[in-house]
């Protein structure tokens, strides 16, 4: 029985029904366990100091919780021109890769979105086809194509176009070819989603009001797909900024990118704190464009 003197509980706006909790809890647990906790561990290592031993660092909190950490690793990352240049070059490579993916991916996405309904799914599958092959195998295939005794040089030499093999592999060209090849689907999918959603009547209205097809594209199609393009850019830019394998296997040896530096510090120098500081710094740098994108989305 309810006591009559008790006022009814005010309805709470964000009451968590048990059923909702069941759905949300695994997601939260997953995020806490595999995103938040590793990030904290990483930050902890970054604040520690290099030391010989296993593991090869001194944690920032000593026995009894005494602070013995240092910001020296972050200072090194921020001031040492070696790391600074690596960061800048990584961002530049990521930017160029994302821009190239947009340039190549936009016409693909537009063609898919304009294709008849029945042909869209096969085209979508074709875009995803590279994922059916292992990532490393695809990079390896490029090595086979581009190296001095590779297919491309072989064909060109057999045709008599060149006498000496072209230095294709271990160049910026090879690196960008590999990067664009690997990341293109990440650009095409959000662009396609944005373009497939568009209302064809809006483009027809523009044509009706006197806009030629090229003008319709510039004044209507392009601006309306801008959020999709921003998403595509970031989905490529963010992983590309930390990419290690492709620059290492295809790129020029002098290209020191963050991914490579990280690998070197961690595995070759066994300087875990510095590697962790690099990783944290990369994360911090990449948060900026993500926030920018969220702003953009919210502003619409």
């Amino acid at each position, binding site marked *: 029985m309810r006591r009559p003197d008790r006022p009814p509980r005010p309805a709470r706006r964000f009451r968590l029904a048990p059923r909702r909790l069941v759905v949300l809890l695994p997601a939260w647990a997953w995020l806490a366990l595999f995103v938040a906790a590793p990030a904290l561990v990483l930050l902890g290592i970054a604040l520690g100091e290099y030391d010989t031993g296993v593991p090869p660092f001194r944690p920032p909190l000593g026995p009894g919780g005494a602070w013995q950490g240092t910001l020296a690793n972050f200072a090194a990352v921020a001031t040492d021109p070696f790391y600074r240049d690596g960061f800048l070059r990584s961002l530049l490579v990521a930017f160029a890769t994302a821009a190239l993916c947009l340039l190549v991916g936009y016409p693909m996405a537009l063609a898919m979105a304009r294709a008849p309904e029945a042909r869209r799914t096969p085209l979508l599958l074709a875009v995803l086809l590279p994922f059916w092959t292992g990532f490393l195998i695809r990079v390896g295939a490029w090595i086979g194509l581009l190296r001095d005794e590779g297919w491309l040089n072989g064909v060109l030499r057999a045709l008599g176009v060149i006498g000496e093999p072209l230095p294709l592999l271990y160049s910026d060209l090879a690196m960008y070819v590999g990067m664009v090849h690997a990341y293109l689907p990440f650009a095409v999918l959000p662009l396609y989603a944005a373009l497939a959603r568009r209302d064809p009547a809006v483009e027809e209205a523009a*044509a009706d009001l*006197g806009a030629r097809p090229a003008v319709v594209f510039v004044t209507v199609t392009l601006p*309306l797909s801008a959020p999709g393009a921003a998403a595509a850019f970031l989905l490529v830019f963010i992983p590309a900024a930390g990419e290690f394998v492709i620059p290492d296997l295809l790129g020029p040896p002098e290209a020191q990118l963050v991914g490579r530096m990280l690998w070197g510090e961690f595995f070759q120098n066994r300087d875990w704190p510095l590697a962790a500081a690099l990783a944290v710094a990369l994360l911090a740098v990449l948060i900026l464009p993500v926030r920018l994108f969220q702003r953009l989305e919210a502003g619409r």
Partner: protein
Amino acid sequence: MSLLRAEGVAKRFGATAALDGLDLEIAPGEFFALLGGSGSGKTTLLRLIAGFETPDAGRLLLEGRDLVPLPPHARPVAMMFQSYALFPHLSVFDNVAYGLRRAGVPREERRRRVAEALALVRLEGLERRRPHQLSGGQRQRVALARSLVVRPRLLLLDEPLAALDAGLREATGFELRALQRATGAGFVMVTHDQAEAMALADRIGVLERGRLVQVGPPAAVYERPATRFVAAFLGGANLLAGLVRADGGVDCAEAGCLLRPAAPVGRPAGAPVTLALRPERVRLRSGEAPADAVNAARGTVAEVAFRGELSTALVRLDGGATLRVSRPSAEGAPARGARVTLTWPAEALAVLAD
């Protein structure tokens, strides 16, 4: 010279013919309504005129010039889309100015004409808003201003009132009519709403399965429907089937009486014929008519529905047919089950072609 002339226009989509040899002529400054159910081809005709589709056969002439080879952007017609199709990323001002920019109208004149157009549809002060910040009625006016500002020779309107609330629809209809008169442009409106078509248009054309079955002023089409489809689509006329007699009358077994239309039936004796009879032309009185009466049938009131200014009664005739009868509610409603006599003037009987 006519503003628009369609000659034998045909368009197929796969196996279905959307338009099947359509002929149509629209005079300058005319408000023409194309009326038809869904799938009748009415929107297809608009899209053919605007240039979004190419006809399989036939010609479309605007002031004597063939439109078919011209791409949409080169045609001096404007279309108002059913969804309005406003540019969501542009302000109201830029939406309306879009066509003027494309035409290269100088900045000052552009500003003046956009202001004029927005004043015409009473949207002053909303220039900076985006479409998603407007109500449905306001969006409709932006779409209207956007198509009118380019001063098209012909404005195509695809269900212009369909997305509006019932309350807004009548007022907007009157405004549309006034705008059409003010601009002097030819309007071709497509609608499935017969009341809307009849209220707004100078002439209406009824489309059935890709063919124009009847064209004329609303009153004429309403009073003298040509086919069963038109009779039923416009105002739900009663249809009575019978056999032609040698003296020009029609024996109608289902009405249980002799029908004698004012106009000649134009069929040989013994031929079957269908006549249309508008519900509001039928008089209802209590009591029994003589059995051999002409244009008078006896029956029993089966159902009465009050519809505000009018009431509709369903009367089951002794011959078996059920007639809809509308009369002013002020005259009082007949009782359900009452024996009544229905009469109608000879002019109210329209002979249908099919």
